[in-house]
């Protein structure tokens, strides 16, 4: 079906600007038209402004300039509440439900804001969850759900709460592949009922088949909006990628012949069990080893345990049982999935880059020369876009900040590097360069442990990998429990 020409657009965003406090311009004059009954896909690299645009449409943040029209009438959203009242709902990246409350309480709060009956919304959400392959008890606390379940719940609520339009930011990032496919089917049904659905995703393959129209953003401006029908018969993906980066992209195939011979063993996880904050075991009686020069990826199918395993090995989290042996004197560095856990976002980029040496040393005067030179070194290596090293780290876009921190950690001569979700929320180019960083760190003789929920990551990096399912590590080739395979590693 073709929505474009049929009628007036449902929502029009006109000349939207967003300049953050630090001076970072996230959007510069973006126009967007959204029609009823269409699935509208937003594409773009990290920092392109997709999330910001969705947040402006949902009332979560206010544009610095520009206006939003609904059915031709100008509206000002002061908060998500205003948008909900107008029938526009949003599912945020990951999840943004209140963790301490039950699913039912979250639902009734949304229902009230959207002006719907809470019980009815609850029923519809349960039905949607079922359609996505999840069982939901309205009385269970959100904090007790798995990341995948949380995301599914977030999406289910948004889909049912938005009468007019549903905005979804990376809705499938943490969902299982099966559920993602079910969701795509569901989206189509809702679109056929006349709702507008706006969705962002880095997984181009997934959305390539379902979008009616695609808007491509780059550095805060709109590059193009294409309707699916107008795409030539060939591969939708190729066309989209061409739009996104005209010079084309490297393929995934990587040369892994350069890997050095594995050296001495620096990490031995011995029959360890690790629990998450709620006490649920995410790793059960498991052993594995890592040597210098080796890269090992652990892929958690449902996203559980990623953070916990990294934290346990880095030493931030206690084991429930078992032991982790790290060779004495081993220098461990850790790139967490969220920048804020490894930095002070309010402090200048340069200070954040030198944070390790500042804190590791004795109390002394700051060596500004040293700070500037290491900042320049890291920024150059990471190719992050940093306007000034004395601006706060938070003034950078998420992807650039992540690069700075990742390179800081990897270039601090680690013996063991832990990388959590190397490509989460990163665009293709950034993902590629993180993969290169991991490989070069290993080739310098460090052991690298990658823990991720993204199946493509080991491929991208080109390394050994294991599957984490229900607290157990499995060999992807045999699907056998690793602990029982002698010499698996």
């Amino acid at each position, binding site marked *: 079906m073709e929505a474009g020409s049929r009628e007036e657009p449902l929502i029009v965003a006109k000349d939207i600007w967003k300049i953050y406090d630090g001076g970072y311009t996230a959007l510069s004059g973006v126009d967007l038209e959204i029609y009823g009954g269409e699935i509208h896909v937003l594409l773009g690299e990290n920092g392109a402004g997709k999330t910001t645009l969705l947040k402006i449409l949902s009332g979560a*943040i206010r544009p610095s300039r520009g206006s939003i029209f609904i059915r031709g009438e100008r509206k000002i959203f002061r908060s998500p509440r205003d948008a909900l009242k107008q029938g526009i709902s949003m599912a945020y990246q990951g999840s*943004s*439900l*209140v*963790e*301490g409350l039950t699913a039912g309480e979250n639902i009734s*709060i949304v229902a009230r804001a959207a002006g719907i009956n809470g019980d009815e919304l609850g029923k519809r959400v349960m039905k949607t969850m079922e359609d996505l392959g999840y069982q939901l008890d309205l009385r269970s606390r959100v904090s007790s759900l798995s990341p995948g379940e949380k995301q599914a719940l977030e999406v289910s609520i948004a889909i049912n709460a938005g009468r007019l339009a549903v905005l979804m930011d990376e809705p499938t990032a943490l969902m299982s592949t099966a559920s993602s496919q079910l969701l795509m089917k569901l989206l189509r049904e809702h679109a056929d009922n006349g709702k507008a659905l706006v969705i962002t995703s880095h997984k181009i393959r997934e959305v390539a088949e379902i979008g009616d129209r695609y808007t491509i953003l780059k550095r805060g401006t709109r590059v193009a909006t294409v309707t699916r029908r107008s795409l030539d018969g060939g591969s939708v993906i190729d066309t989209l990628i061409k739009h996104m980066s005209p010079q084309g992209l490297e393929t995934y195939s990587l040369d892994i012949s350069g890997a050095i011979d594995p050296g001495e063993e620096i990490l031995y996880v011995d029959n360890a069990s690790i629990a998450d904050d709620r006490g649920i075991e995410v790793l059960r009686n498991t052993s594995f080893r890592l040597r210098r020069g080796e890269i090992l990826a652990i892929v958690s199918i449902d996203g559980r345990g990623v953070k916990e395993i990294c934290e346990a090995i880095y030493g931030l989290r206690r084991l429930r049982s078992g032991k982790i042996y790290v060779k004495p004197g081993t220098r461990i560095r850790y790139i967490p999935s969220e920048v804020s856990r490894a930095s002070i976002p309010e402090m200048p980029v340069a200070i954040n880059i030198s944070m390790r040496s500042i804190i590791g040393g004795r109390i002394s005067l700051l060596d500004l020369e040293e700070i500037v030179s290491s900042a320049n070194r890291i920024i150059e290596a990471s190719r992050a876009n940093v306007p000034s090293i004395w601006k706060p780290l938070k003034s950078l876009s998420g992807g650039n900040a992540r690069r700075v921190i990742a390179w800081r950690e990897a270039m601090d001569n680690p013996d063991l590097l832990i990388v959590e979700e190397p490509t989460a929320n990163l665009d293709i180019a950034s993902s590629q360069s993180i993969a290169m960083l991991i490989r070069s760190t290993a080739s310098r003789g460090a052991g690298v442990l990658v823990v991720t929920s993204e199946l493509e990551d080991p491929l991208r990096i080109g390394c050994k990998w294991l599957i984490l399912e229900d607290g157990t590590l499995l060999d992807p080739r045999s699907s056998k429990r690793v602990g029982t395979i002698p010499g698996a590693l």
Partner: protein
Amino acid sequence: MDLPSISGFIGSLLAISTPILLIASLELLVQRSGVINLGVEGAMLVGAFTAYVVTLYTSSPLLGLLSAIALGSLVSILFAIMAVYMRLDQIVVGVSISMVSIGLTSYLYRLIVGYGSPPKIQSTLIDALAPFLRSIPIAGDTLFQTPLTPISLALPIAFWLLLGRSLVGAIIKASGEDPSRACRLGVNVAMVRTILLALEGIASGAAGALLSIGYYGSFLENMTAGRGYLAVALVILSSWSPARLLPTVLIFSLIEVAQLRLQASGIIEIPYQLALSMPYIFTLAILAISSGGKKAPRSLGSSEYEC
């Protein structure tokens, strides 16, 4: 102990606990919504002062109570403007408001009433309602120490129900757990907090009025003497649970009453300073044992959030 002295003991207990319980119940809701309001001390003092001055000039304790409520909530709303809307540090704003209130009430007292032994008001709040209260059978004299005592006892129970099983309760909890996310769910966090603070101001004003025109019949500089701060501390001691608030406040008041009776009985020779510091030592000990922070509303004390 014979029956009248037991009833006297319970009476003293309730007299001490009523104002604290009134404030603490509302402070519990306020803290569950993510705000820690140390300005209650100021609101209470302003309430005590207003009630006294109005009663002195109109001879109507009820009018005094009403104006105390009005000005108490005004102080609380002032706190809300600074801590919720301007997002200034809640704790410093609270302490400052209390400090300004001490100064302002003593200053205005001097200008309006004069200095020295304060003129007594004609009839206290309790006098005004005494015939009615006494006529309540069985527990009239003990339980109904003040007209607000039954209300103060009922509040924690009501709030326990409110937080446990109502939409309003969910909205309050959401604001305190994660205001950014609550906002995304369509909650007007600032409004929720402001309304609760205004209600707390009403309670603080009434509690202050109890002190000045209820128990004592007059006003003295800083006559609340830290009772507001105490109420805030007791909320923390009760781990933010309305069910635990009632016993916590009563136990605390019991220690206070027992401490005075202990001195009065002359049985044990302890430095009186030790007796007087008991409540604070007790508070610190409970803080130490209960490892308080864990159950706290996650955003308690922080004014910054975004949608």
